[in-house]
């Protein structure tokens, strides 16, 4: 594992320099802070601005008027409920087919195991949008364009890789000694899996499920290409708002609303994403 975590590093490496402020780090933090945070801050201000005319640095009037206006729009509620239904369906289906597969890849031996697992990792090796267009060509003949299940299928494919390689790592990291001990104590294979293996792997698997859910919720390309014009998810609605430029605040309010699930994911999965294993899934 690569130690990004500075605390473990300092424990291993003797620090023989004098303690002085980390100017480089502070400069990097400041630069990143400006680049990363400011665009989002501008959006957050817009969401609460009632009147903001150029060239005032801050809005002339703050308020919640546009929150009411945005939330009163039926297209927002339709898109929200559709997006939630899509994400829940896709995540459940993905967990249902991928988690057993991940367990098999991690712990069982069967013909073609390495080649099949490699082919999941290799599915990143194609330009995604081109692939979507190729799939759309097939869906056109099958009548799946502009249907709920067409979009489910396309988004399900998008979750495959993450829902397989992260859980595979989780199942491989389960402590074998504890499983053997349980088996020696007379527990059957299913009991061992349910009471020993699964609880140990659960936090990582939960993170993978959460990342899949959030990833599906924000998935735009597939929904746009396969779902148009009937299936309008939140991100697709957001793009139409941006293109039509109707009221600036609608987009801002939606952005702030949409950012909530992503913030929850950030809280729960930062540890997983920051670990070296996450990057290893991409072949480094």
């Amino acid at each position, binding site marked *: 594992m690569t130690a990004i975590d500075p605390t473990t590093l300092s424990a291993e490496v003797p620090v023989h320099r004098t303690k002085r402020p980390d100017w480089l*780090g502070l400069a990097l933090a400041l630069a990143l802070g400006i680049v990363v945070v400011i665009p989002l801050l501008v959006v957050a201000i*817009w969401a609460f601005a009632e009147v903001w005319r150029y*060239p005032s640095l801050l809005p002339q009037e703050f308020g919640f008027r546009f929150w009411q206006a945005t939330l009163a729009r039926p297209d927002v509620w339709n898109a929200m409920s559709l997006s939630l239904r899509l994400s829940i369906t896709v995540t459940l289906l993905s967990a249902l087919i991928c988690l057993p597969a991940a367990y098999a890849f991690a712990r069982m031996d069967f013909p073609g195991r390495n080649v099949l697992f490699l082919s999941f990792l290799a599915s990143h090796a194609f330009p995604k*949008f081109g692939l979507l267009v190729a799939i759309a060509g097939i869906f056109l003949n099958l009548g799946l364009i502009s249907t709920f299940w067409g979009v489910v299928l396309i988004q399900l494919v998008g979750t495959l890789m993450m829902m397989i390689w992260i859980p595979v790592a989780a199942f491989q990291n389960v402590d074998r000694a504890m499983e053997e001990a349980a088996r020696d104590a007379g527990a059957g294979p299913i009991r061992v899996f349910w009471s020993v293996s699964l609880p140990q792997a659960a936090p990582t698997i939960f993170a993978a499920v959460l990342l899949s859910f959030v990833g599906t919720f924000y998935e735009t390309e597939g929904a746009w290409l396969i779902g148009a014009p009937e299936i309008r998810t939140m991100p697709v609605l957001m793009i139409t708002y941006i293109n039509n430029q109707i009221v*600036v605040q609608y987009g801002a309010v939606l952005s702030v609303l949409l950012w909530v699930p992503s913030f929850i994911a950030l809280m729960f999965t930062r540890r997983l994403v920051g670990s070296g294993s996450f990057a290893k899934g991409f072949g480094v």
Partner: protein
Amino acid sequence: MTDLASSGTRRTGGTAASNGRGLTGLLLVSAPVALLGWLIIYPIFNAIARTLLAPTETGTAFSTDTYVRFFSDGYALANLWLTLSVTAVCAALLLAICLPLALYLRFAKSRVAGVVQGLALFPMFVPSVILAYALIRTIGPNGGVDLVLNALGLPKINSPYLTPWGPIIGLVWDNIPLTTLMLVAGLGAVSDNAVEAARDAGARPLALLRHIILPQIGNAMLVVLSFTVLSIFSAFTLPYVLGPASPEMMGPFMQRTFSQVMDPRMAVTQAVITFAICAVFGAFYVRSIAKNREARR
């Protein structure tokens, strides 16, 4: 961490038992494998076949008409060229930004490193639609940057919105987290001892970078480059929202050909052309994953 080979060596038991487990294993992986075959592998071959076989009166015949049309169409070529140059600029910018970041994160020992890491990973959790909107409001005409410049009595910026620089800024922003993570993982191969030894021997930072660090992360850098090229070449949302309307990048171009021009065969042809261009990077990417797995065996 994801090395499959290690579990194989621990397996004990007879052939009959392992045959049974072999079947169970295959059965468990069959659903995602079938999906992978149907919606990733089959569409690629289908796309190639569909574009090269044109329907005629007597059935289907080999034809390269759509490819000829693509490569003789100035507009299509301009789109391809724009995509290639945006990809090149993004890749260069990403390496220039993320390599110093990754080097800092790999060797920093201060508390600030945690903050830098958090900020560098942050864009991963911002969906591209929100990013696109935020960038319009920030660097678009009369956006946040213009407001600040105006307040300081400076002239407005030449807004990158709806120019190739719009998607470039967006794509670089979006790709910083993964690029940094992959580079940090690659830098894990560089041992602290080697760096300390070279530093004690009086090596300057630049010499250290050139002779100790870069040779060891060459492979990681190429993987990062391949991955970046693949993801930027197939970007849609950011080029569509932030980019110019004409010429347009390949993502929006394919989408428009498919949904508005209603010419699926041409759209799929464009897709196959992007596959062909990315094939080298894709092949390198797969080879690198395979080699890494070999090495951990």
